[in-house]
């Protein structure tokens, strides 16, 4: 199984993804944003960063990169697509995932490791028991996910809410546990079929125990096991 990690002008976390994959024994290579050929890749990752300088809106310009048409077709064929941080923003701008990103409540760029709770979900990217709490860093200015109430209800009912921000013990504070103000404490969602997954936190940064931790590993190994039919 080979992951393709797309490099947009302004991406800056693509190497983190590649290093995490290699650490976990996953074959991986870069894909240039101007490429239109994804043959040879079994999963596609849109990494974090500031694609096209975040101009207009985060992800708004990257969405029209030549590679994105092929990423849409890849996902339509059921191919697994992961968007981390700016990658998640690009997926919403491309309407591959519902909703949109606002600036963080309080206007602060937030860089900290936060607890996330795995929800009951249909997403093959995260095969962890419901209620599992993982600690993963966030690092963003526009992670305040929003969607209309009908969309939020539908995401919840369909098992498309994959991870939520929570308190260290896995509960959710009455006033919300999302440090960025995200609706319904949403940190990551998947598409109706489950194969497209976007999240604001950076699981690739907690894959090597000598550097940070291992909480992010299942966010890469789950899909490999799923594709292998394990």
């Amino acid at each position: 199984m080979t992951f393709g990690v797309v490099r947009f002008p302004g991406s800056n976390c693509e190497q983190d993804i590649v290093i995490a994959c290699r650490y976990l024994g996953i074959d991986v290579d870069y894909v240039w944003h101007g490429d239109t050929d994804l043959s040879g890749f079994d999963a596609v990752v849109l990494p974090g960063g500031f694609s096209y300088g975040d101009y207009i809106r985060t992800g708004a310009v990257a969405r029209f990169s030549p590679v994105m048409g092929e990423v849409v077709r890849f996902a339509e064929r059921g191919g697994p697509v992961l968007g981390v941080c700016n990658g998640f923003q690009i997926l919403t701008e491309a309407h591959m995932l519902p909703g949109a990103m606002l600036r963080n409540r309080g206007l602060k760029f937030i860089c900290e490791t936060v607890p996330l709770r795995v929800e009951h979900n249909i997403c093959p990217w995260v095969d962890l028991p419901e209620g599992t709490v993982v600690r993963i860093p966030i690092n963003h200015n526009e992670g305040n996910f929003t969607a209309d109430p009908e969309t939020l209800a539908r995401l919840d009912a369909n098992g498309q809410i994959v991870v939520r921000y929570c308190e260290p013990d896995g509960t959710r504070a009455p006033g919300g546990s999302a440090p960025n103000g995200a609706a319904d404490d949403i940190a990551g969602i998947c598409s109706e079929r489950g194969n497209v997954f976007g999240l604001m936190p950076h699981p690739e940064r907690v894959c090597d125990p000598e550097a940070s931790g291992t909480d992010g590993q299942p966010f890469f190994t789950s899909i490999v096991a799923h594709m292998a039919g394990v």
Partner: protein
Amino acid sequence: MARYEIFVTYKQGIFDPPGATAERALASLGYDEVESVKIGKYIRLEVADGPNELARVAEMCDKLLANPVIEEYRIVETEGAAR
């Protein structure tokens, strides 16, 4: 050539973090009369004359300049740019 001014703002009901912050800041400066602040974007386009000009500008807004999921826009045609 025509000039278009485009005002992009959040839709009703969408939380506007910069607007809310400015609202609190103005209140703390003593401007108690301020009831609401909304902050948006101003975009100016100069467009060569052609068919379906306004419809094409609206299309540009829907595709790129605004995100219809959270934003709405108002297009104002102003005087043609002097050339």
